[in-house]
């Protein structure tokens, strides 16, 4: 009998996968087809959603992409019933496909089960070897040995800071206190990052198991998962998984029949990015405003309700069971000297294949953008990649051979962050980009530190006037000065790193700032205030199409005669450029 799996992560559902699922279910019932229909999470090919996998009697896998309900019917009739795979829609199978390169350079540890197992079934997780690591640990390992293994694996926190996880666990284990807590940070809010959501939706038990192992290592009996409000499906999945684990005795009192107790609660955020910062997150769990506080003391000593608390990111925890099962050496075999293992990157922006890719540390930017991501959309030129969200920076295409690890990325002025990669092409204005991220931090600043609250606002004002064509001599120096002050006079990472997008674009694209300020010109033709539209008289056929399309009635001209744009009236919407079939409209 064949098995059919439909990717029903939120990403899939919002692309229409639920309807595809229903169509397949209908077909199975209508024609009384002998096949097993299952749901699964995401395999990372966001750009091909909705995804449907057919596994035949010989266990061969055929993955179809962009499966509409109509296509699903065809697949059912042709492939499932008549053993004729529909070759043109296949994205991954035993036959070569252009999409194969998406997976070729990947090594999946965190995403090991994503898109493969049914995330709502603890049995399927167990069948892949799930919950063996925690049982091994409970039976054979002392807490110290667990910490030693995690330390030797070289695993560094995946939530942004990159702190060695084993060392952090040891701090918490060694901290004095009768009661200790662990927290899983699932507040993922960095623009461009979505690996934590995908992991929670596609393989929630791997995160729960990682938390159990950590709790045992540091001696905590209670854990919290703090998930952002924008992730309702991830929260629902987690709640379901916790219930399943409780029912099996994997959570609660005497887990797996051992003397160890461990329970997990879920806390939902309420739309505040800064709550991803660990001390703010703790305040939020305690029912307060999510304001960061000065550290030290670190949560490992004084965390939730003043007790020693270990906090790690979703991806960090998801690595842990794999490390226990495969050994720290196997993990450390991936990566570079200072950054071991793999990292999940979220590809978005002007890239052909947006999605999630898990690669060994040390891979180059070009390999990710071109080999995995398939290059830039619409054949445009790769210009830069933004790493690390609002705390990170823009790395120019000229540094595409840079090996991605914590040290190399820090050297560029960007940071690894949570692994969001926003790819930009030649049409992206770097000043505008910096403005984007600064507006984000300005929006999300909690307001406690003056320099974060007011300083970012001042910087934003300067960037706005530059992109509006009102930049002045001295603005670049002013930006640098403000950046320095903000970095040194704020208490949490949000403020301290807020200037990075501005500083990196200033470092790698100074000529773009200068062109805006001195020549009132946007080299990427993106800042609308600095653009003018005009019509090339010799190319214009006088078809009048642009005049009809123009919402501002800025275009005049007689039939079959060259048209003209009245720049005083033009609102720079670009409709004329889109409309003209003769390439007579130009933008400057």
């Amino acid at each position, binding site marked *: 009998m064949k098995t059919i799996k439909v990717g029903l992560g939120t990403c899939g559902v*919002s692309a229409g996968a639920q309807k595809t699922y229903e169509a397949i279910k209908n077909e199975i019932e209508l024609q009384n087809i002998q096949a097993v229909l299952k749901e699964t999470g995401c395999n990372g090919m966001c750009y091909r*959603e909705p995804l449907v996998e057919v596994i035949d009697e010989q266990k061969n896998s055929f993955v179809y992409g962009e499966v509409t309900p109509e296509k699903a019917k065809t697949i059912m009739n042709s492939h499932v019933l008549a053993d004729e795979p529909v070759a043109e829609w296949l994205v991954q199978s035993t036959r070569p496909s252009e999409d194969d390169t998406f997976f070729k350079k990947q090594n999946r540890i965190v995403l090991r089960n994503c898109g493969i197992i049914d995330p709502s079934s603890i049995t399927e997780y167990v069948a892949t070897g799930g919950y063996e690591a925690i049982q091994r640990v409970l039976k054979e390992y002392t807490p110290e040995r667990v910490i030693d293994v995690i330390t030797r694996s070289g695993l560094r926190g995946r939530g942004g800071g990159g702190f060695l996880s084993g060392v952090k666990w040891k701090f918490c284990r060694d901290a004095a206190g009768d009661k200790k807590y662990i927290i899983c940070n699932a507040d993922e809010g960095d*623009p461009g990052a979505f690996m934590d959501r995908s992991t929670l939706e596609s393989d929630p038990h791997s995160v729960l198991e990682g938390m159990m192992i950590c709790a045992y290592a540091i001696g905590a009996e209670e854990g919290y998962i703090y998930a952002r*409000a924008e992730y309702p499906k991830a929260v629902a999945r987690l709640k379901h998984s916790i219930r399943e684990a409780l029912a099996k005795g994997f959570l609660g009192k005497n887990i797996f029949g051992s003397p160890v107790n461990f329970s997990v609660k879920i806390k939902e955020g309420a*739309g505040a990015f800064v709550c991803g910062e660990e001390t703010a997150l703790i305040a939020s769990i305690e*029912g307060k405003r999510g304001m960061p506080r000065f550290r030290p003391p670190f949560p490992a000593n004084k965390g939730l309700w003043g007790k020693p608390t270990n906090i790690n990111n979703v991806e960090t925890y998801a690595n842990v069971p794999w490390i226990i099962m495969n050994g720290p050496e196997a993990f450390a075999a991936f990566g570079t000297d200072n950054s071991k293992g793999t990292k999940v990157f979220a590809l978005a922006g002007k890239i052909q294949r947006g999605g999630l890719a898990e690669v060994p540390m040390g891979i180059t930017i070009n390999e990710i953008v071109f080999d995995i991501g398939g290059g830039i959309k619409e054949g445009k030129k790769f210009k830069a990649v933004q790493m690390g969200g609002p705390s990170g920076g823009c790395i120019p295409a000229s540094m595409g051979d840079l090996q991605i690890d914590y040290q190399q990325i820090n050297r560029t002025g960007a940071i690894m962050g949570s692994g969001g990669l926003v790819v930009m092409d030649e049409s992206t204005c770097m000043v505008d980009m910096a403005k984007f991220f600064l507006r984000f931090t300005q929006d999300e600043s909690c307001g406690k530190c003056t320099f974060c609250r007011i300083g970012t606002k001042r910087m934003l004002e300067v960037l706005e006037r530059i992109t509006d064509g009102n930049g002045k001599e001295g603005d670049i120096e002013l930006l640098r000065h403000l950046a320095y002050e903000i970095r040194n006079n704020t208490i949490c990472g949000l403020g301290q790193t807020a200037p990075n997008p501005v500083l990196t674009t200033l470092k790698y694209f100074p000529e773009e700032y200068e062109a805006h300020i001195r020549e009132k010109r946007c080299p990427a033709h993106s800042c609308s205030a600095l653009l003018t539209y005009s019509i090339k008289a010799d190319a214009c056929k006088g078809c009048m199409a642009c005049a009809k399309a123009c919402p501002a009635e800025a275009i005049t001209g007689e039939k079959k005669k060259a048209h003209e744009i009245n720049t005083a009236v033009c609102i720079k919407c670009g409709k004329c450029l889109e409309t003209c079939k003769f390439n007579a409209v130009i933008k400057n």
Partner: protein
Amino acid sequence: MMLNEIVSTAVKKFGVGREQLLPVLQYVVSQEKWLSEDALLGVARAFDMSAAEVYGVASFYSFLDTKPRGDYVIRVCRTVSCDMAGKEAIMEALEKTLHISVGETTADRKFTLLETNCMGWCAEGPAMLVNDYVYTGLTPEKVVDILQGYMAGA
């Protein structure tokens, strides 16, 4: 349900320990869509806190609205990837169809239009959230379709 019933249901469900303040406020918002003065007062009384302190907590979080909201709260992502993917046109279509601007609620209290920061659907932007439901890969036409679905009372 009446407001005081909603508050008492929430309190029964979660309790009145300080760490339950957010869950209780979130529950009220899930029922009422926003936190009225009466709701804040009710919660403050149940938690034996000052209304000002409860308001202080609520106003910190963007999903705990302290302004009236419609039945369907639309949050359009305004962050970088969605912007690159054409968020502006989506916003225009929403504003035109609903006859309101960002931050406003329709006269019939059915829709509220808001912007929000990245929601983690970046590879499939532009994206928006309508209450708890996610829509991605939006086009102006799709947006109008979706709104018509809700207007028809779905």
